[in-house]
């Protein structure tokens, strides 16, 4: 498609969530961004860990928000603090959701980054570092394991003679990824591997507690779990196991951890029903919720014109302040958004993308997308209300 015909460098209306930092832009929806920023600010400035429910209908931008806050430098640039930002999807179609979650989380945390973070712990706390790890870990074996990370770079190991640093990075990595063969345990001189859910909780809370200790290295850990509503597709017993795991994780990480649960509403869902889905113990810790409301007409218009004129999609010299919806006309945009039913951002993107592409397939290409053109092709728009 030659989008240059419409003074665009690319199709601005993405039909799937962006993944790379460069492509991830936040357009419009200022109120929502403000609500999210307040939560981020509050977690950076204060200590208590918390669970936040991001609550909205399908296509309301929850996944996009998770990607934006975890994959771009926005938090660092905007709040001037270093935070650990991780997004994982809820494990589904699995018999062991906790192990799947650990694998997925490790993929995001990245072994090399953990090594690097513990290097920073050593630099910051020096000879105190082992004691800090012990104080932040409820399980002595996990504490022993995490302390071994202090020595993998071979620097300043004389500070902690008691730990023993003959361990290879490979053995630490193997252990972390669930290898509990005798050979690995022997190499690390550890009696047990990561076998049950509680040990996994202890490991993760130990890491999170240590790297946010006194907010010196990281001010906060933000963990976003996307598509949390899929928990309903797991057998009840597996659901209980996973929610218990999350409850323990938040209990054993009392400070500096914020878990965002992205939850897509179904027709008859009420916020009160969450206590059944999450279990009472977890629901009682999830008092904060952020509504991802549908944009109203004004918000939709702001979103569309800001997107069309974003530097990622239109060079500044092509922006015409008198024609901000180009190639759409303002009347055609209003006509479209009043005819697609419930206005989710996803639906707006998909519909405007489709109409743009259909216009570019015309011969000759229409100079602008008018209400008449939209009417003519409306039967080809799936979301068009009959």
């Amino acid at each position: 498609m030659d989008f240059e015909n419409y003074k665009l460098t690319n199709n601005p209306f993405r039909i799937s969530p962006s993944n790379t930092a460069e492509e991830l832009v936040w357009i419009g929806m200022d109120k929502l961004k403000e609500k999210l920023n307040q939560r981020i600010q509050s977690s950076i400035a204060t200590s208590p860990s918390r669970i936040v429910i991001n609550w909205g209908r399908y296509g309301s931008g929850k996944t996009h928000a998770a990607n934006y806050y975890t994959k771009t430098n926005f938090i660092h640039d905007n709040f001037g603090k270093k935070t650990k930002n991780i997004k994982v999807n809820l494990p589904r179609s699995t018999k062991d959701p906790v192990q799947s979650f650990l694998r997925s989380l490790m993929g995001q945390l990245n072994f090399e980054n953990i090594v690097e973070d513990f290097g920073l712990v050593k630099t910051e706390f020096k000879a105190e570092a082992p004691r800090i790890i012990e104080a932040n870990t409820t399980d002595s074996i996990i504490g022993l394991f995490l302390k071994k990370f202090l020595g993998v770079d071979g620097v300043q190991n004389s500070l902690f003679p008691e730990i023993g640093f003959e361990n290879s990075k490979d053995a630490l990595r193997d252990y972390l990824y669930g290898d509990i063969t005798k050979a690995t345990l022997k190499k690390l001189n550890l009696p047990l591997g990561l076998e049950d859910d509680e040990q996994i909780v202890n490991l993760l809370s130990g890491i999170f507690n240590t790297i946010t200790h006194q907010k010196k290295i990281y001010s906060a850990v933000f963990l976003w779990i996307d598509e949390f509503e899929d928990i309903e597709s797991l057998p009840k017993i597996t659901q209980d196991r996973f929610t218990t795991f999350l409850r323990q994780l938040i209990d054993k990480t009392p400070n500096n951890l914020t878990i965002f649960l992205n939850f897509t509403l179904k027709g008859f869902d009420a916020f009160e029903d969450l206590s059944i889905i999450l279990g009472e113990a977890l629901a009682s810790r999830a008092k904060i919720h952020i509504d991802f409301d549908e944009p109203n007409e004004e918000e939709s218009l702001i979103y569309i014109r800001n997107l069309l004129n974003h530097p990622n999609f239109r060079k500044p010299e092509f922006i015409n302040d008198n024609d901000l919806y180009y190639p759409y006309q303002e009347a055609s945009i209003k006509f479209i958004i009043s005819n697609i039913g419930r206005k989710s951002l996803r639906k707006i993107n998909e519909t405007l993308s489709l109409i743009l592409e259909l216009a570019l397939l015309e011969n000759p290409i229409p100079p602008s997308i008018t209400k008449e053109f939209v009417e003519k092709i409306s039967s080809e728009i799936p979301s068009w209300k009959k």
Partner: protein
Amino acid sequence: MILVLDACTISNLLHIVQDNSLIKLLDKSFENVFITKEVIAEFGSSKFVYLSYYDNSRETLNQLISDLHLSDYVSELDSIKYECIPFVRNFAIVSGQTLKESDGEFQSALLSLYLSRWGENDFMENSNRVLFATDDGRANTFFIELFLSNQIGTIIDSIDILCIFYLKGLITKKHLLKNVDAILGLYSSPLNELKQTISRIKERDIKGIFQSYLTNLLDMLYENQLESVFDTLHEGGYKKMYADFPKLKDLIRKLSVNGINGKAAYVKSRYDFISNNLLWDGHLGISK
């Protein structure tokens, strides 16, 4: 009260707790619990279908079923229940029903009729004391008239059994609600499978217009507008997409055949009744 159990109800009671703890409560709740030989055979031969949602290995499942000792639940009257067949056939003809005699439900109805007539001492001593538990909506429609007009008793389902457990003090209200919610989860599993299939297709590089159709389908699913989803099977644009993704079409068809929407709404309404304290547990005043 005498309980006659159907295969789908056994499967529900196993599924929601993932063990046999609820089945064990049946003996404490009813004078007698019976399962026909045909239902036991049907359950045995299709156990992995019935328990497809069970989160465990085949060996564990085999062990679980063997531990149930289902054959202990066969009534002494089971082998003579067939005497009722001509009567039930006639009843079906007069009331305009078409019966499938090989079904476990049909056999359970025969046994229920027989049990209601012959007790240990007198003819009719168990009249209106036989409960047939089935979660097959069609079976309920077919046989409810037979049960009522012949003074057999009535037809109940898994949720009724759970309510009986609660009212007899065998489970707490919290457990009752949790288990009813688990039944909702069971009935919603085909819906969840459809949602996840659509989401996986959406992640692929597919035509923009198909993305829009799929978004619409997800919208309808999240809004519980299943009839609109079924309608798409006959709409031109969607039909083109289904030609490319036949699995999608199969899943939607299966949903429309199983009447999943009505079932989920029914379970939800029962859930709301219980959570709104509309099930009296015998305490004076409003139950909490």
